[in-house]
């Protein structure tokens, strides 16, 4: 290294370095940037969405029915240890669900109102943006944010990215915690998951495939006095029930300012 650097050497070395560094620049073009795209072009061919009537869902029987139906449909384990519990659909208080919408004079009763929460199957999902293996991705055909449990490496980056705490990680083997019947069978044939992967609500993609409604929707709407508490349909269809409700009633969704475009709406 003792020879004097000529200008040519410097130019040669620097361009090699710039070329090397510049090789990383293309990734910038692929960092999502959904907001900059044409609104009409982004999103999927179809977009499943859900509308939850918060007033009707005050009935604990509704919320119990939802959670139970989901648990049985998907063999969800019941883990008591705090911090390890798995939930796909559950409820939290209004104050926490709509933290950006309440103020110090919001009536206590509203603040304490339990609200059903689940994965919002966002139009612009941050979890999909960060997953390093595409183990979670937004399905183009119907907009469901899917999980591929075969591919998930359990890095939990998606959980850091989700603004709704909608995802659960299997900190342990779930099978010992899944309720079985007298013959040792699980509530359904849906594959259980293994320790080390992340899971969340999948809008009952396997039921939709057979033309059925999601389990929670079907169960909740059967609770006496709660017909229509959960509406589910295709947002791209202007005649669907969800489109109709959204056009006619005042609805809210969670943390709108973040730009994730959640597809679960709440009639408050």
């Amino acid at each position, binding site marked *: 290294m003792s020879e004097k650097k000529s200008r040519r050497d410097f130019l040669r070395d620097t361009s090699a370095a710039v070329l090397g560094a510049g090789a990383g620049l293309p990734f910038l073009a692929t960092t999502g940037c959904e907001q900059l795209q044409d609104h009409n072009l982004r999103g999927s061919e179809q977009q499943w969405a859900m509308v939850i009537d918060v007033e009707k869902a005050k009935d604990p029987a509704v919320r119990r029915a939802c959670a139970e139906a989901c648990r049985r449909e998907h063999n969800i384990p019941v883990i008591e240890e705090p911090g390890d519990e798995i939930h796909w659909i559950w409820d*939290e208080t209004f104050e926490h669900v709509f933290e950006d919408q309440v103020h110090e004079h919001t009536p206590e009763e509203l603040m304490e109102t339990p609200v059903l929460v689940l994965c919002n199957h966002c139009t612009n999902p941050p979890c999909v943006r960060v997953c*390093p293996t595409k183990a979670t991705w937004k399905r183009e055909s119907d907009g469901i944010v899917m999980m591929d449990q075969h591919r998930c*490496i359990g890095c939990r980056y998606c*959980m850091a990215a*989700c603004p709704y705490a909608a995802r659960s990680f*299997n900190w342990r083997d779930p099978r010992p915690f899944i309720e079985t019947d007298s013959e040792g069978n699980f509530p359904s044939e849906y594959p259980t998951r293994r320790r080390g992967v992340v899971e969340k609500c999948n809008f009952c993609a396997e039921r939709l495939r057979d033309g059925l409604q999601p389990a929670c929707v079907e169960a909740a709407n059967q609770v006496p006095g709660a017909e229509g508490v959960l509406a589910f349909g295709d947002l791209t269809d202007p005649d669907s029930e969800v489109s109709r409700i959204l056009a006619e009633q005042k609805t809210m969704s969670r*943390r709108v300012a973040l730009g994730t475009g959640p597809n679960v709406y709440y009639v408050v």
Partner: protein
Amino acid sequence: MLEAAFRGGKRYWALLGVWAILILMGLWAWGQQYTQGLTVTGMTQDVTWGIYIAQFTFLVGVAASAVMVVLPYYLHNHRAFGRMVILGEGLAVASVLMCMLFIFVDMGQPSRVVNVLLHPTLNSMMFWDMMALGGYLVLNLLIGAVTFDAERRCAPPPGWIKPIIILSIPWAVSIHTVTAFLYSGLEARTFWMTAILAPRFLASAFASGPALLILLALIIRKFSRFDPGDQAIRQLALIVAYAMAVNVFFVGVELFTALYSDMPHHIHAFEYLYVGLHGHDALVPWMWTGATLTLASVVLLLIPKIRNNLSILPFLAVGVILAIWIEKGVGMVVTGFIPSPLGRITDYLPTGVEMAVTVGVYAVGFLILTLIYKIIVNVRERMITSCP
């Protein structure tokens, strides 16, 4: 050249023995984690990253800091760093290895890690982090081996290594930038989503890395005849001083934005760290210790008489490393999850298993570092007498 690692006295082999025992303990603990699942750690559905990812974040900075010696020496022919550069590259190799190991032990399905390579996802920062870390490891191994081998033969290094060395400079900056990008692009986590996160990472990296290098250089000087030189050590101290000053400025800037705007979302995290949030104050003593160490070390380092005093400098270096370790290794990762998106505050404390695995990974890094430095020292000690 590698056979030089086998020539050593009793103390050397005893040190390797210590690392080996710690590694075995870590392996056993990781075995517990692998068979039972990550439930044996202190992480929960609300705090999904803990000590492993925090150590990775801290060590990426140390790894990147090799650029602080490489740049002056190779780009500007700064001769004083002649015998320091190889130590910096050795530290970079050991640090990057530890980074990759810490990520590996944090995975829920470690056997599937190769999926990141099989299904490259260009929009995921974690994919780019893996590429950057892997590439940096290869770069530093190559550069270190080739340049050191050339020196050993008293010959100039081959011409083709020069562009690779130049490449390692922006690459070093990129590994820590992409790690910052892991955090700073998440709209869900307001504590992390700040543009200054990447600059902060770099500033703290350029303080903690060279500080560790100073300590290592002084240790090597004490136990062998290899001497990187007083001038190199003092100049590293100067780099640490300025980097710490910039780091303090950056922290101050963050505090201003949060406190002056008085926005709950921005303030909550700092409240949690420095005074406690809704009664959760486990990290408060840590953060104030870190703040004291930071201010004390930056003030003392900026005083030339103290900084240049090589009897006091080791303590300042330890202070800097501890301060940055508290800032990134303790305070940064967990706080991103406080409060959770649903307003919950869940405390996190690493379990015994987690700490054993952590110590085990550190031991792997220090084992590699010991081996690399032993090779350097052994080869160099012969060179003092044999090179023309």
